[in-house]
């Protein structure tokens, strides 16, 4: 062929090729390496994956009240911590009840809770359609409903009624449900969990940490206590006690420490690996509060107050189990603290207002930050259940029964030293009410419950008033302003904010 002919021929081939490959399919590109929500979950294995993911939402840093333990900081147990400047204008404002709807952290907490709700809803909504072992299927759904109930309780306690989402495809505009509606969902979820979850002993060793019947019962006790429904609180707390699944760790520090991980006292905890990073299995909760400086275990937020330090009776081993002081030696590590933090802070009158110290409850043996990420945050421990039982029994006018469980806690607390923390004997319900309330502070300090105990018992104004607490306002957090803005006004702010 002549060159010219060859060329025309080549063009013809090219044009044919163009029209051939130029068909529609060329522009169809599938998502790479990632499933779409239309294609998941489909199999029994998917069902397990979806269920596991639900737990992870509790290990997310922001699940912990937006990252920082603001509920301890808002209580009389803790101050902001770290050095004076660090997060002074953000976290520091919670300490003095000057936080506002735009306060840093509120949106993180709010969002992290809804991530958990979404993940639970995936299991609850999608797994029923999967063909698989029915027993296992029911357990998965019950695990997810336990977590959804737990999270909605976090919600309702912090904000009151919030938009109620029980499906994976909520509408784009959703107003707040009432607190009652939220409680209905919480109780429904937890009752389903009680009915369908195994006892702790029903799990293999490798599955310890999954939600149990006991955990769901304990949550119900907590919820009813918060609602002053003492009959139900008593019932569910006693169910946990009578299940014979739990006991108290002999050593107080093991109740939150590594040795007690998934131990006898653990009713529900968030497992973690000693690894820096949420993705790789760590939990930043303890890193946030870890000793600042030397050894470098973390940022040192949430510092036990002078008031908390002084509240322990002399010799109470729980003092050492709650507060890390400078120059302490723990697990062979000497605590030297932080150079930018004053060892002692005085006010204008020369009174000591703060002493550099740290939260012992999150201590993990080690001398670096990485290990600190391995702390298993206890969301429910048996001592709490005993004290809930004691409180409910007392309120139900059974003080003698209440004493049994209160004294179990005190007995462990004295750690064999019979000269301290004698058994309580009074059966005056009013007196006992104060004693139990106090016992909760000593036993559960720095674990995130104090603020809520003050609020639910109506003592917040008296105790926190001097710190800035305003009745009728600070019982709830403000709805994050960003969420109100996003809703274009369909979310209504809490009163007085």
């Amino acid at each position: 062929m002549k060159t010219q002919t060859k060329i025309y021929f080549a063009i013809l081939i090219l044009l044919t090729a163009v029209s051939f490959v130029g068909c529609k399919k060329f522009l169809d590109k599938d998502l790479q390496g990632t499933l779409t929500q239309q294609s998941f979950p489909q199999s029994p294995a998917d069902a397990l994956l979806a269920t596991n993911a639900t737990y992870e939402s509790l290990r997310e840093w922001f699940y912990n009240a937006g990252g920082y333990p603001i509920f301890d900081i808002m209580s009389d147990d803790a101050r902001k911590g770290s050095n004076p400047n660090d997060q002074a204008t953000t976290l520091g404002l919670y300490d003095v009840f000057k936080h506002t709807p735009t306060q840093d952290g509120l949106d993180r907490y709010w969002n992290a809770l809804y991530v958990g709700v979404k993940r639970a809803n995936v299991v609850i909504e999608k797994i029923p359609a999967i063909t698989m072992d029915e027993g296992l299927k029911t357990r998965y759904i019950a695990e997810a409903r336990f977590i959804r109930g737990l999270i909605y309780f976090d919600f309702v306690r912090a904000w009151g009624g919030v938009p109620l989402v029980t499906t994976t495809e909520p509408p784009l505009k959703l107003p707040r449900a009432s607190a009652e509606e939220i409680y209905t969902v919480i109780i429904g979820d937890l009752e389903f969990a009680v009915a369908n979850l195994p006892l702790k002993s029903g799990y293999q060793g490798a599955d310890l940490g999954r939600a149990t019947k006991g955990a769901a019962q304990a949550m119900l006790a907590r919820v009813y206590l918060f609602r002053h429904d003492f009959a139900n609180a008593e019932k569910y707390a006693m169910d946990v006690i009578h299940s014979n699944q739990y006991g108290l760790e002999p050593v107080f520090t093991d109740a939150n420490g590594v040795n007690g991980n998934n131990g006898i006292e653990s009713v529900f905890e968030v497992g973690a690996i000693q690894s820096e990073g949420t993705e790789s299995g760590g939990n930043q909760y303890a890193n946030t509060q870890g000793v600042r400086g030397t050894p470098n275990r973390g940022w040192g937020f949430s510092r036990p107050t002078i008031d908390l330090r002084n509240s322990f009776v002399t010799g109470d081993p729980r003092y050492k189990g709650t507060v890390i002081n400078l120059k302490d030696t723990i697990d062979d590590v000497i605590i030297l603290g932080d150079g930018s933090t004053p060892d002692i802070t005085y006010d204008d009158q020369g009174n000591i207002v703060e002493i550099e110290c740290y939260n012992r409850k999150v201590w993990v043996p080690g001398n670096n930050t990485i290990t600190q990420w391995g702390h298993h945050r206890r969301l429910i421990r048996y001592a709490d259940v005993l004290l809930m039982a004691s409180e409910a029994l007392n309120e139900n006018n059974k003080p003698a029964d209440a004493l049994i469980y209160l004294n179990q806690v005190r007995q462990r607390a004295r750690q064999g030293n019979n000269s301290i923390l004698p058994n309580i004997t009074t059966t005056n319900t009013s007196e006992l009410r104060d004693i139990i309330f106090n016992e909760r502070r000593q036993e559960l300090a720095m674990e995130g419950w104090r603020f809520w105990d003050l609020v639910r018992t109506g003592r917040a104004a008296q105790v926190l008033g001097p710190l800035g607490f305003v009745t009728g306002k600070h019982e709830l957090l403000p709805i994050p302003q960003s969420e109100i803005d996003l809703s274009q006004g369909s979310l209504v702010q809490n009163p007085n904010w």
Partner: protein
Amino acid sequence: MQKIYQPPKSIRIKTTGLLILFLTGFLAISQAQVRTITGVVTAADTRETLPGATLLIKGTTTGAVTDLDGKYSISVNTEKATLVFSYVGYNTKEVELGSQRVIDVQLEPKKTTLDEVVVIGYGSVRKSDLSGSVGSVKAEDITKITSLNPVQSLQGNVTGVQVTSTSGTPGESPAVRIRGVGTFGNSNPIYVVDGVIVDDISFLNSNDITSMEVLKDASASAIYGSRGANGVIMVTTKMGKTTEGKTVFSFSGELGMQKLAKKIDLLSGRDFATISNEIKPGSFNNVDAVPNTDWQGLVFHNAPVYDFQLSASGSSKTIQYYISGGYFKQGGIIDKSSFERITLKINNIYNLSPYVKLGNNITFAPYSQQVAPDVTYAVYRANPTLVPYYPDGSYAVVYNVGNPLASLAYSNNFNKGVRGVGNIFAEVNFLKAFTFKTSYGIDAGYNHSESFTPAYTVYNPDGTISQQQNVMSRLGKNDNYNLTWLWENTLNFKKEFGKHSIDAIAGYTMQNTTSDGFNLSGANLIRDGSNFWYIQPSYIYDPANNVNTISSINESVDMDQYYSMISYLFRVNYVFNKKYIVTATFRSDGSSKFAQNNRYASFPSFALGWNVSQESFMQNIKWLNKLKLRASWGKLGNDKIPYWDRYARVESNILAIFGVNNDPNTGATFGINGNPDLKWEVTTQTDLGLEFGMFDSRLTAEFDYYNKKTDDILVLLSTPGYLGNGVGAKVRFNAASVVNSGFEFNLGWRDQIGKVKYNIGILGTTIHNEVLSIGGNSGVDSVLIGGYLGNGIPVTQSSVGLPIGSFYGYKTDGIFQTKDELNAYPHDAQAGVGDLRFVDVNGDGKIDGRDRTNIGSPIPKFIFGFNFGVEVYGIDLSANIQGQTGNKIFNAKEVVRPDPYNFESHVLNRWTGPGSSNTEPRPSFGGYNYTPSDHFIQDGSFLRIRNVVLGYTMPANWSNKIYMQKIRLYVKADNLYTLTKFTGYTPEIGSGDVLSAGIDYGIYPITAVYSIGINLNF
């Protein structure tokens, strides 16, 4: 009569030639009437010798041709004669012979301003036939700036273009914005390198480029429809000319020294101690006895930059070629940072027949980069009363920020890779007017990065472990590749008949992009040496720390790089009688990034041009030799989003930790919601232009008004929390509108006074940027928050009526001077006497987050440039000055202060008592006064002498002696001087993220560069 002297074929023959010349000269002396005239013909503009120039004795047929070195010799046997010199593209010159024997001639280039050819998409057009707005930079201006990235040369040379360095890190690409910021996402223009569409041109050596054209308005860029919205930059690389018979070699070499252009004025040790004592009495017993460490001096040092390039170009009967090799190396002014690049370029055209052409343009660029850890922030913050080393030479602790010298010493971050960009094409001309072209282009990249940090500890003075510690060695590796192919087929029709001229093109193109990458990480390597930087696939148990470390492998599709496109394009340019120009362009694009129903979009544009000066009624106005009006309107698209944005995705590799052994149990669940309804973002642009030339084009001017409105902007918006997308998660929507409008002008004056040639240019652009809508009816946010500081506080908020990325914070109106004043105003609980007074903007009697407001825009209102050049006796001097006004900078590095850090020296003007200062509050190490407010907003206006070059081109007869056509030596300075009020290293704060522009987080400083260089042609 003697024969015309024939040019010799080689240097060896040349010597013989000289001998003959000498002999003929000698003969000439002996024969009185027959004189031999010799000389060299050079080009007046380039001072290069002109081989093949012809000369004739006027009125005769006797003549000669210059040899390879531009030399000629001719015998003249009459007393009086005139020699006529001519050369293609140059004005003919006549020289009357007197008694001279040696006549060197300089030929002036023909004035071609009116017929300058401009490269546009899928073709080129005479400037007079152009109806769109196109800015152009030629080779000599492109090489003026010492930079890895040729796009730097557009700054100050083309109106409407803003090129801002994002960092001085060697190898970093600048942010380029054409006519403002039109979208919230990727706002970079596209580059078309010899027909291949790429997203940046850092792989090109400036010396390989002939011209860069910036297509600014819709008419010019609509042919790139979907991708043209942020502007198009056409890059044409060099090619051997058909007229260039012999091979031309060019060498350019440059050595430069980079220097920190400016130090930030920080407190000395003594001043720091003084201030510390005011904040916390007793911090320092004797402020005169504290050390004074200049951390900037310790970390920054001068660093060299090298740039060499050798090329050969020319043509044979059928082949045109250009090949080159280049080497660029830039050291960093911070240790452990550098960039090195080799560029290989091969461009060929094979003219198989008068009708058939094949060709290729190929660049291959391997590179190697070392990236320093981010120590500028630490240098800025480091306490000046601390010393860098202990007496034993080990690194001393620097509280709160870490010792930057230790961070550098233990850092090893490398990127190595290669970028290959090129195409092959075939062009067939048939039926005279038609040309069919098919081109297949590739843009391929491979990058391998490694980072290694050994285990190390910086100790406190008492021997305890400080916070600067790496418990175990860590190794990270990342590999990724990307490959784009682009196949373009176009049919061009070009015909002139009578007064009509038609240039039409239709085409079909396909593009496909894929990429993949993976990350590996490991820890506790058995040894620290680089020969052990390999990852073991196992869990590693560290008994000392009771830690499990996991070697992890993550594979991911890199960013958005997985998509395909199909496009149909059409353009017709019709010119009637050289006066009236009509251009219509249409492009239809389909992108795989959108779901089927939204996949295709059409982008039309229309333009009219009127060469008024061609009208007969203009012919009498001699001083106005050119006048042109043009107007264009069109639509452009944008799909620069990650391809996965439309999908509702499942998040996997979520770990739940169960069991007595803390076993990781994998999980997966619904991740972020997608938006299946995504569609093309569309920019509608209108442009009105006026061009004129006066006084024989000594004065040229171009004015444009532009209005660029972008709708359906693809923007990531926060969604309500109850959708469960998570903290900070955003979903893409078509939900915003932005307008950019302004005027551009470009004035040039070019003339010659005697032997002095000079030119002056001034250009400028005004930018009005305004957000017209965001979110709104999508049930999503109506403001866009960005510019997050290190402590998580955002400082920009883009909202309706304001420019994109406007700063957001408290307004201040002074300092609380007295307790009474404090009590009289609403104030934050933490404010005290001597602190900043925030304005109660919403007037509710309290200061809280709701009082934060707009405190300035990072987008300049006016950007401008001056350039100037003068040339005489082979000496050339040029300068380029540029600047901008109307923008603000947020000095973020000053704001985030969790710990006691050093201060900028303005803190010395602090409030010390009533009346002492109403601008600088009492000193504090952090807290209230460091809440983001306008106290940290600075004026970002500047005027910068960006570039000054002084060169000398040797006379041709000197260079010829060493067989060179041209020798030019030069010295130059880049970023010589900057006039600004900004206290940071540089007021040019670029950012790839338009919501974080103008925020100085403490970037790697931009440098001043002083260089010497040489250009050789031989």
